[in-house]
C-alpha cells in the first residue's frame, strides 16, 4: 500500500517502546510497507511480559484473535511460548468462551525478538527518546538522550508505565519504568507542557518465587485442556506437552500478617495517589475490602518451562520486603518459599484517552499516536490491539488515505477504542465481554470472518495468511451451502432422535444444527460425511447455529424501533382518548389519520413522546 518514504525524513514511522503495543505497531507498519524505527532501551527486553506471563482470557482472548485476524504477532507468539492452554467458560455458549495461554516468558520474548529482527522494514534503535521534535503543531521526529535526532512524519508512542514511573515497595520509592528499566521523565514533562490532560494510575505485581522451594505435592493441581486450542488460526495444533498450575490459598495467619502491617503498605500508608484497577486489587485491598473472606485462592503459575520462577497469581502487593516474605510463607506449600523478586506497586502518568481521536492520533500534536497503558489501558492484549490500530492509521495518514476506525458492532477493538476515546477512564481499562453490546456476534472464534477482509484491504496480511483465510472461508461456505440445501422432514428428524415441531415442513440441516440437542457429528445420521469436514469448520457452524435464531429476533426488535412504517395504526383509533397526547397532537393526528407509526412520526409537531404513547396501539403490519 505505502511504499514511498517522505522526502527528507529518515523513516516513515517511529515507534517508541517495544512492549506489546510497540511490537504490534512496528510490525503492522512494516507489513503495510512502511519504513519503521523502533526505539527501545534494550533490544533484549523487546516483548517482555512485565506482569503475569499469561495471554488471553475472557474479552482478552477475543482481542488476541482480532489482532491475529489482522496478522498481528501476539497470538502466534503465545502459541510458540505456550505452557498451558485452556478455554475459559468452555461449558458455556461460544460467545463467552475465552482462550487463555500460560506462556514461557523467555520463549515469548525470543519469538518477538526474532519476528522484529526478521522484519526488514523495522530498524531497532537502542536508546532513550527524551523528546518529540515538533514543527508547528506536527511531530517530525524525536530527540534521543545521546543528542541525536531521528526523523519521521509519524510517531507512535507506547510508553507503557514508563512516564514518570515510580515503584513502591513499602516505604521504598524509586523512579523506574518497571523493575530493571529507567523511567521516562523528560518525555512526560514535554507532554504535560503540550497541554495534554495527564492523570496518574497505579498497578501492581506480586513477588516472584523460586520454584525449587515450593512444596508442590501439598498443592492442588490445575491442568490445561486435554486438547489444547491454539490462539492463532495459523497454528495447526499444539504439540508441546502441557504444564500444570497449582493452587494455594491465603490463611488466617496470612490475613493477620497483612492486617498488622497495613500501615507499611505503600498503598495504605498514603504514598500512592494513582488509581488502581478494581479488578486487579492488591492482596492488601482484598483483605481490607472483603473482611468476611477467611481465604483467597492463590494460583502458582510457572513463568518458564523449567518452572524455576513462579508467579503467585492473586497476591500483588506493595508491602515491605520482610512482610512479603512472612505472608508468602504463611501459605500452604510455601512454608519454605524463597522470593526471587519482590512484589511492587508502580505509579505512572497516563494521558486522558479523550485527548486522542478514534484513530489514536492525539488532538494536540498532529502525527503523534498513542497506544497502550499511556492512554489508560492495562493488559498485553489491549496494548497490542491499540498498537496495531495506531500504526495502521499512522501509515494510512502518510499519503492521506481514509483512516481505519473499528466499530463497536464489528470488533472488541471497536468497543475499546470507542470506550476510551468517548468516555475516558477512571481506572486502568481492561476488556470484558460484558463491555460489548454485540457480544453474541463478536465471538473469539469468528474474528477471522469479521476482520480478515479489513486486513486484506489494509494490506496487513502476509501471503501465507491470505491463503489460509481464503482456504478456510471457502471450506466454510461450501459446507454451509451443502447443509442449507439438504433438508429433512420432521419425521426423518425424529427417526434420527431429534424432536422438532411437527407444524413446520422440511427443515434444512443448517437450521437443524441450531437445535439444542444437536451436535455437528449428529449430522452423520442424515448422510453428511462429518469426518471429511475440517473440525474448525464444524465448530464454527455449530457456534453460529447456537445464536442464529436469537440474533435474528434481536435484530428484528432493534429494527422495529426504527422501522415505524411496518407498524399499522388501527383505522378507527380515537386519538382524543390517548391522554399522553397534547391537544395540538390530537387535533393533527385526528385530521391526518396516519396509517402507520412512521406516518404519524413525520407529522410536523408530533413529538417522539407522542409516538411512544401510540406504540401500544400499533400492530405489526402483515406487509412487514
Amino acid at each position, binding site marked *: 500500500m505505502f511504499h514511498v518514504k517522505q522526502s527528507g525524513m529518515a523513516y516513515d514511522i517511529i515507534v517508541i517502546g517495544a512492549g506489546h503495543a510497540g511490537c504490534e505497531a512496528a510490525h503492522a507498519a512494516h507489513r503495510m510497507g512502511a519504513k519503521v524505527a523502533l526505539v527501545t532501551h534494550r533490544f533484549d527486553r523487546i516483548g517482555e511480559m512485565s506482569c*503475569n506471563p499469561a495471554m488471553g*482470557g*475472557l*474479552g482478552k482472548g477475543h482481542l488476541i484473535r482480532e489482532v491475529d485476524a489482522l496478522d498481528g504477532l501476539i497470538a502466534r507468539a503465545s502459541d510458540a511460548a505456550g505452557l498451558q492452554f485452556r478455554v*475459559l*467458560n468452555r461449558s*458455556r*455458549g461460544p*460467545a*463467552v468462551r475465552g482462550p*487463555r495461554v500460560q506462556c514461557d516468558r523467555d520463549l515469548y520474548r525470543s519469538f518477538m525478538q526474532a519476528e522484529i529482527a526478521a522484519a526488514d522494514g523495522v530498524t531497532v534503535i537502542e536508546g532513550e527518546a527524551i523528546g518529540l521534535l515538533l514543527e508547528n503543531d506536527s511531530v517530525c521526529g524525536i530527540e534521543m538522550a545521546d543528542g541525536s535526532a531521528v526523523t519521521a512524519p509519524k510517531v507512535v508512542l507506547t510508553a507503557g508505565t514508563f512516564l514518570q514511573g515510580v515503584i513502591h515497595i513499602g516505604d521504598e520509592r524509586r523512579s523506574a519504568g518497571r523493575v530493571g528499566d529507567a523511567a521516562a521523565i523528560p518525555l512526560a514533562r514535554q507532554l504535560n507542557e503540550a497541554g495534554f490532560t495527564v492523570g496518574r494510575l497505579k498497578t501492581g505485581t506480586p513477588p516472584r518465587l523460586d520454584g525449587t522451594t515450593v512444596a508442590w505435592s501439598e498443592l492442588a493441581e490445575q491442568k490445561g485442556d486435554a486438547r489444547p486450542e491454539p490462539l492463532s488460526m495459523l497454528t495447526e495444533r499444539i504439540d508441546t506437552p502441557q504444564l500444570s498450575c497449582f493452587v494455594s490459598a491465603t490463611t488466617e495467619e496470612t490475613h493477620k500478617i497483612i492486617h498488622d502491617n497495613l500501615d507499611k503498605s505503600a498503598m495504605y500508608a498514603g504514598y500512592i495517589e494513582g488509581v488502581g*484497577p*478494581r*479488578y*486487579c*486489587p492488591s492482596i492488601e485491598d*482484598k483483605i481490607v*475490602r*472483603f473482611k468476611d*473472606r477467611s481465604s*483467597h*485462592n*492463590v*494460583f502458582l503459575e510457572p513463568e518458564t518451562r523449567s518452572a524455576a520462577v513462579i508467579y503467585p*497469581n*492473586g497476591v*500483588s502487593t506493595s508491602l515491605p520486603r520482610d512482610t512479603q516474605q512472612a505472608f508468602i510463607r504463611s501459605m500452604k506449600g510455601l512454608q519454605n518459599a524463597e522470593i526471587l523478586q519482590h512484589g511492587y506497586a508502580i505509579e505512572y502518568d497516563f494521558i486522558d484517552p479523550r485527548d486522542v481521536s478514534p484513530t489514536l492520533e492525539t488532538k494536540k500534536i498532529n502525527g503523534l499516536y498513542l497506544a497502550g497503558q499511556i492512554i489508560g489501558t492495562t493488559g498485553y492484549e489491549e496494548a497490542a490491539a491499540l498498537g496495531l490500530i495506531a500504526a495502521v492509521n499512522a501509515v494510512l495518514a502518510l499519503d492521506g488515505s481514509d483512516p481505519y476506525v473499528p466499530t463497536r458492532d464489528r470488533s472488541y477493538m471497536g468497543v475499546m477504542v470507542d470506550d476510551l476515546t468517548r468516555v475516558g477512564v477512571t481506572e486502568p481499562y481492561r476488556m*470484558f*465481554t*460484558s*463491555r460489548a*453490546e454485540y*457480544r*453474541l456476534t463478536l465471538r473469539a472464534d469468528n474474528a477471522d470472518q469479521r476482520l480478515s477482509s479489513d486486513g486484506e484491504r489494509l494490506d496487513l496480511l502476509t501471503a501465507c495468511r491470505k491463503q489460509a483465510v481464503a482456504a478456510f472461508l471457502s471450506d466454510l461456505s461450501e459446507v454451509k451451502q451443502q447443509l442449507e440445501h439438504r433438508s429433512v422432514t420432521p419425521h426423518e428428524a425424529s427417526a434420527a432422535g431429534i424432536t422438532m415441531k411437527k407444524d413446520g415442513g422440511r427443515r434444512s440441516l443448517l437450521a437443524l444444527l441450531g437445535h*439444542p440437542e444437536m451436535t455437528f457429528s449428529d449430522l452423520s445420521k442424515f448422510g453428511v460425511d462429518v469426518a471429511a469436514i475440517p473440525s474448525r469448520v464444524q465448530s464454527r457452524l455449530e457456534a453460529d447455529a447456537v*445464536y442464529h435464531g*436469537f440474533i435474528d429476533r*434481536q435484530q428484528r*426488535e432493534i429494527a422495529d424501533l426504527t422501522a415505524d412504517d411496518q407498524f399499522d395504526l388501527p383505522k378507527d383509533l380515537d386519538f382524543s382518548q*390517548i*391522554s*399522553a397526547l*397534547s*391537544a*395540538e*397532537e390530537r387535533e393533527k393526528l385526528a385530521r391526518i389519520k396516519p396509517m402507520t407509526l412512521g406516518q404519524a412520526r413525520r407529522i410536523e*409537531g408530533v*413529538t417522539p*413522546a407522542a409516538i*411512544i*404513547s401510540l*406504540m*401500544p*396501539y400499533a400492530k405489526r403490519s402483515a406487509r412487514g
Partner: protein
Amino acid sequence: MTGSTTTIFAIATGEIAAALSVLRLSGPDAFAILDQLIDGPAPTARRASLRVLRDPRDGASIDEALVLRFPGPNSFTGEDVVELHVHGGPAVRQALISALAALGAEQAAPGAFSQRRYRAGLFDLSQAEGLAALIAAETEAQRRHSMRLMDGEFGRRVAAWRASLVDALALIEVGLDFAEEDIGQDVEDAATAQLRTLSAQLSDELAAAQRDTPGLATPTVAIIGPPNAGKSTLLNSLADAELAIVSDIPGTTRDTVRTRLTIGGRALEVVDSAGMRDTADPIEAIGVDRAQKLAAQADLRIIVLAIDAPWSPAALAALRREGDIIVWNKADLAPEPPAGMAGLEGYLPMAQGNLANLSVLLSEIDQRFGVAAPALSLLAGSDRRRFQVEKAHNSVIEADGALDHGRPELAVERLRQANRDLHLLVGHIDQEEIYAEIFSRFCIGK
C-alpha cells in the same frame, strides 16, 4: 446544559380574559430581551419588581407589569427565565407578543417549556407526564396521582427496579467474565432469585394498574328513579340550566343526558336518565335499558322519588345499594313519604325552587366524594408507562428461562432489553453501574 439556542415565550395563563396574565420567556436571550423591554434596571433575581414595559420599536408603553427574573440553572427550564405578570386583556397580550417577536423570541410550541426542563435533566419523563396530568387534573384522585408522578415517585420506583436489574446483571456477568476467580457463591442462583422477585414486583404493579385505571376517571353521578319523579328538573337545578326537557308527562326523558358539573371544587359527570318502568314502547325501552346500565356503573346514584311517582318497596330494594342518596322530591306536595313506604331512611326532602334543600343535596354529594382519594398505581392512566413495564416484565421472564436453560449470555441480552425498556420510562442505564456493583461485591482479581 440544555443546548437550546432559541428563546421562547408563551402565555402561561391561557387565552382567557382575566385580571392578570402571566407570560414566560426562557432561553439564552431571555435577560437581554427583558433589558430592551423595560424601563429602569433589571430586577434582582427571584424578586418581584414593578416595571413599565415598552415596545422597543416605538418606545410606546405596553403595560405596567410585575417582573421576575430566574437565572439558570435554578429555574423551571434550567435556562434563564423571565416572568411578566401583566394585565389580563387580550390587547395587552397581543401588544406584548408582537414586541417579543420583534425582539427575536419565538412563540413556544405546546410542551416546549417542559421539554426544555426534561432536556436539562431537571425531571424525568414520568415527571413531565405528571406535570401535564396535573394541569389537566379535574378530580382529587387525578390531582393526587399527578402530584405523586411530579414528585418523582414513579422515577424512584423505576430506579428501584433498575437497581434490582443491575444487581441481577452484575451477578450473571461476574459469573461469565470472571469465571476463573473464586467468587465464592453461586451467582446464577442468586440472579435467578433476584429476577423472580423483580418479576413479581412488575406483575403486581401491572395488576394494580389494571385495577386502578377506573379510579382515575371523572366520577359519574346518576340520577335514577321511576318516571315523572322530577329527575330532569333536579338535573336542571343542579346545573342551573335548562339541559333536559321537562314536562308533566311521564316518560319524557328517553335518553341519558350528561353534563359536567363542578361540585365542591371537583369535577363530576352528572347524568339524567329515563324513568324506570316496564314499557311496551320500544324506544322508551331502550332508554330504560340505558338507565339500568348507568345505574349499575355510576360511582354515585341519586334515587329520586315523589308522592306521584312512588315505587314499590320491592323495586326499591332491588335497586338500592350502599351510598345511594334518596331524594323525596316534590316535598311541597307531600312533605313526607307515606307511612309504610320502607327503604327510604335518611331521605332528603326537596321542594322545587327551595335553595336550602338544594344546598343540602350538594353538600351531601360533596361528602360522598370527600373521602381521601386512595393512592393509585402510578402505571394507571398511561398506556405508555404500562406498555413499557409490560415489555420489561416479559424480558425478565425470558431471562429467567434462559438462565434455567444454562444460557446466561442470552439472559443478559434479555435483561439489556429490559433496561432499554426501563430507559424509555425515565432515564438511562450505564454499563459502569454494573461494574460498580460487581467490584463492590465480589473479590475479583487473582
